[in-house]
């Protein structure tokens, strides 16, 4: 991914892995409602948060992402009943692991956004983008010899 410069300076690249049924629909609602939010996020839709392998996050960083967001249905709302509960357990461990190896907690975010929460989505993306902007480009990961 090429870095994009705007008049204000460097713009972060954020990968969002979202579930099909809630967060994607929420983001879609934001779009159809003509709500404005930071264009820094690239969305990848998956059937369920339970399908989001931690490797996806690692691959995103490897390919130059400055931040990653993982988002799905609120507890109890999973289209497949329990996918998000399993995902939540995995995230608890994965987040601790990423913290432990020194990935700044501001670069990896998790959220629940339902199909009707377009406002939450807009607000979330704006906040995350601001936070990652402050952290700057993820040079540690991008600079790894490959």
């Amino acid at each position, binding site marked *: 991914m090429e870095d994009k410069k705007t008049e204000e300076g460097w713009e972060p690249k954020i990968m969002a892995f979202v579930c099909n049924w809630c967060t994607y629909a929420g983001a879609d609602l934001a779009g159809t409602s003509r709500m404005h939010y930071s264009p820094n996020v690239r969305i990848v839709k998956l059937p369920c948060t339970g399908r989001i392998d*931690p*490797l996806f996050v*690692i*691959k995103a960083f*490897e390919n130059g992402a400055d931040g990653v967001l993982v988002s799905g249905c609120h*507890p*109890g709302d999973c289209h497949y009943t*329990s996918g998000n*509960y*399993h995902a*939540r*357990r*995995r*995230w*608890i*461990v*994965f*987040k*601790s*692991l*990423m*913290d*432990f*190896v*020194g*990935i*700044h*907690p501001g670069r990896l*975010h*998790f*959220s*629940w956004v339902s199909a009707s929460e377009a406002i939450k989505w807009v607000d*979330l993306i704006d906040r995350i983008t601001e936070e990652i902007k402050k952290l700057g480009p993820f040079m*540690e*990961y991008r600079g*790894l*010899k*490959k």
Partner: protein
Amino acid sequence: MEKELRERARELLESGEVGVVIGYGWNRRKRRTTPVFIRKPEEAERLVFNPLCVNNLSVYLTRKYPDIQKLGRAAIVAKGCDIKNIVVLMAEGQLKRDDVYIIGVRCNGVVYRQELWQGELRPEIMPVKCHNCDVREPHVADTVVGEPVLFTPPEEPVGMVFDKIREIDAMSPEERWQFWMDHFSRCIKCYACRQVCSLCYCERCITEKNMPQWIETSAHPRGNLAWNLIRAMHLAGRCTFCGECERACPVNIPLNIINQKLVLVVKDAFEHRSGYDPDTHPPLIVYDTEDKEDFIK
């Protein structure tokens, strides 16, 4: 103890109850121990047990070894810590309790590496797991050999691994990153850590999936980081901290630190300790609707 061990192995082979006894024997110079596969009653004399018996032999019970499974039902000489791995294999449906005859050995601790042995077991040459061991009396076994061991593990775990975890926890993200990159950059992708682990029993490891290539095979810092993160993640909630991966690592990456960190995370978050109960599901395949989610926005 060895007399008892050999006696038991001989009986099992004579009666035909097992086809092979997996245990420890001396190497040629009698200075190191090595895994042995005893198939004839008269060979039971080769079995030994002493502080050099560091290997976790449970790896030979996994499906990675079809040729060993062909030898018939196995009996295995196992320390408490090794039994933990057998228990996880049972919990994960890899083994049934009857598939294996466990000869539990009461253990006073082993050496961290066999090269350190100079004829005497001193605390300095023991791994951290031994200093905190609560299974010196084997907890799941068909028979137990050896003298009872009087040892109470400290209430709060002690040892270098725990000190180091606290130290890393206190570091800034940048310092942590530096610490791990220094270590992971040495990785030579020999996968010894995976091969000695009895819980890495996948027939096809994620590193071997190359359509697309998920984990880069080249030994460069980026691919090494991905491998080490995923290895740790795949063992989360399952690792029993037996320490085989770190022992096998030819470049001394402190894998025990990252493994134990996740053991602690899992214990805090899900109150789960792996390797104690074959009937409890591993924590990452189940869930609780009340799991903590303070980090989820």
